């Protein structure tokens, strides 16, 4: 049984070389994707832009930035992520987040913080709008028809006419449909409220062991890709890894040990129905340990095989994104 391997990058660096280095390490190790953490109000760069920066410097790896729906414009998010898909040739994703933090609301000054139910209802609308905007151009909307002088066939563009409780968006997008059709949408979930509201393709979950992993997978909607999050402190010497872990706590299980021991753990979790694991490096050095030391062990044991897919959707085994506005879709 093989699993997919992803890494969560949670660094606060503003150095281009730092991000280029981290992304290239992960890309050269042929990991499946990296996520770039972010939220308003924390020190650190804008994650969508960091992902865009590393896109031309990498070839294979999926790029999934975090972006929060609470204070952002869905129209801007949709166009930025579609563009990330263009600059990465089909390797873009988006990890959706909401914010209940009053300090973040103060940064924008637009309104008081929302309650949890409203936050998720708004996020659900934002995801819906972003997805509709991605579909708002047919793949073949650009016709360049010299005899009639038309660059596009406007009948192949669609107003999305979304009107919800929190905002309304007319559309169409300004960006033609991105290479993947729909970039991959992901969300971290600890509870039903998340998956009941957010129409994601990938869920990051935080099981404590193989049994809890299996239980979570059973609860999630069918057809979704589930990645188990795991904080990783890796060292050839187990004692050193444990010492480096110290008393760190996390919402996810925290592993400290040798690459072989982590491979054992992943092998043990694989039958739970997860698509893969997303490793959160305990320190930036642990990214090096993952790519240099862990990946060869996983490959040797047949637990991990680099994908030959060129787009992130294909790599994750997600179905082709059918355009909801296309005539074929209407007949389906």
């Amino acid at each position, binding site marked *: 049984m093989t699993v997919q391997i992803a890494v969560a990058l949670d660094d606060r660096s*503003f150095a*281009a070389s730092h*991000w*280029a280095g981290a992304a290239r390490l992960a890309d050269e190790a042929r990991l499946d994707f990296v996520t770039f953490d972010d939220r*308003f*109000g*924390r*020190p*650190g*760069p*804008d994650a*969508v*832009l*960091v992902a*865009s*920066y*590393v*896109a*031309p*410097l990498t070839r294979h790896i999926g790029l999934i930035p975090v972006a929060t729906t609470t*204070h*952002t*414009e869905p*129209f*801007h998010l949709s*166009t*930025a992520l*579609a*563009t*990330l898909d*263009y*600059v990465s040739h089909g390797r873009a994703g988006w990890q959706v987040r909401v914010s209940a933090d009053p*300090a973040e609301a*103060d*940064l*924008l*000054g*637009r309104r008081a913080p929302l309650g949890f139910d409203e936050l998720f209802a708004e996020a659900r609308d934002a995801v819906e709008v972003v997805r509709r905007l991605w579909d708002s*151009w047919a793949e073949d*909307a*650009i016709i*360049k028809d*010299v005899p009639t*002088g*038309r*660059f*596009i*066939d*406007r009948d192949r*563009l669609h107003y999305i006419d979304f009107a919800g409780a*929190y*905002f*309304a*968006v*007319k*559309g*169409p997008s*300004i*960006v*033609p449909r991105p290479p993947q059709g729909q970039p991959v949408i992901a969300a971290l979930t600890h509870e039903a409220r998340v998956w009941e509201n957010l129409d994601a393709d990938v869920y990051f979950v935080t099981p404590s062991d193989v049994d809890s992993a299996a239980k979570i997978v059973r609860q999630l909607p069918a057809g979704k890709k589930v990645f188990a999050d795991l904080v990783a402190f890796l060292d050839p010497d187990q004692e050193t890894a444990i010492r480096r872990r110290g008393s760190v706590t996390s919402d996810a299980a925290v592993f400290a040990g040798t690459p072989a021991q982590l491979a054992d753990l992943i092998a043990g979790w694989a039958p739970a129905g997860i698509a893969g694991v997303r490793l959160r490096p305990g320190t930036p050095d642990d990214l090096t340990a993952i790519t240099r030391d862990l990946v060869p062990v996983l490959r040797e044991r047949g637990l991990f095989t680099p994908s030959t897919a060129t787009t992130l959707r294909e790599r994750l085994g997600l179905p082709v994104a059918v355009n909801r506005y296309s005539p074929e879709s209407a007949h389906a």
Partner: protein
Amino acid sequence: MPKQIILAAHFPGVNNTTVWSDPRSGSQIEFDSFEHLARTAERGKFDFFFLAEGLRLREQRGLIHDLDVVGRPDTLTVLTALAAITTHLGLAGTLNATFHEPYELARQLATLDHLSGGRAAWNVVTSHGGFFGENFRRGGFLDHADRYVRAGEFIEAARTLWDTDGGDFAIDSSQFGIKGRFGVPRSPQGHPVVLQAGDSAAGRDLAARHADAIFSRHHKLEDAQQFYRDVKGRLPAYGRDVDSLKIIPGVSYVLGDTDADAQEKAHYIRRQQVTPQTAILLLEQLWNQDLSSYDPEGPLPAADPVLDEDDTIIKGRAGMFPDRLKTATEWRALAEAKKLSIRDLVIEVTGRQNFIGTPARVAALLDEYVQTDACDGFILVSHLTPGGLDDFVDQVVPLLQERGVFRTEYESTTLRGNLGLRQPEGR
């Protein structure tokens, strides 16, 4: 030493400059196109790459405009990707002060400035009315008169954030009540370069007060010189010296083996830019009514333009005609005097400043404009994407270098350094 010319490369946006029907025309969306133009500009030692922003597809007669290039990628996302594959080229993007928020945009621009090592620039524009607002939470919330108020306060807010060096801020102005921690350390340029476009008195004042450069649009040498004197004359009132604001018009160019050859090419290009269908649509923008039944090769409408500005036929672009009646009268007189059809007339009266001729002639003209204080440099808009700048870089840049009016190596790794702009001091 003669004045040094500033050069920038505009990735042609959604207007009829780009001749998409040319077989050499590439994609307006694929990253390869942006990469090609940026690498060409950097090879030519250009100061910066310039990218516009789209917030909604343009409409005319209530329909999505379908004749010109339609659709474009997100500005900041493309610029940040270009930062990874260039080393000296400035990266300038139009970003609307109406439909962005200061904290978010200041953070994004500072991110770009960090990742590019000090090459970010922001062209500040404003919008009003409900057309773009229909794609945003806030709708069409801004009165026309408040556009520049918000833009001015937006720039001040962004500068305040950039000056915190990652620390705390509190802004309480007529448009913004925001506070918290910025979280981005001071970026390599201190403040990304601020460009501004807009020709009204309020726009000129905004630029004189806040901008590092103006993206202007003046067609004739004398007009450009007058604009230059006017704007630079406004600087002392804000405690600024004349070199702290650069005036950089958007211009196009056509090169040929001989001047006659270039003129012939230019004529052909204009016919491609203004097709019969495009001519009618452009005329409708002045007449403000449906003229689809008119023959583009026939005479102008006898009736006057519709003046109701609340019900314009165009949506999503700035009204270019402050006095429709006066302009229509002038156009009619011109068409009668020169016996021009609708299409010929539109070709005659539209288009930007165009430098046409042999490379030597174009180099001399550009130099003349800069040395006689009509401008400080140019934002070049080619009619072909993405290869339209290649011949300029290969043929004109070396001549400007020979004249000693354009660099042979970058002076600096930052855009401010290359433009000769001072680094703002922190507060």
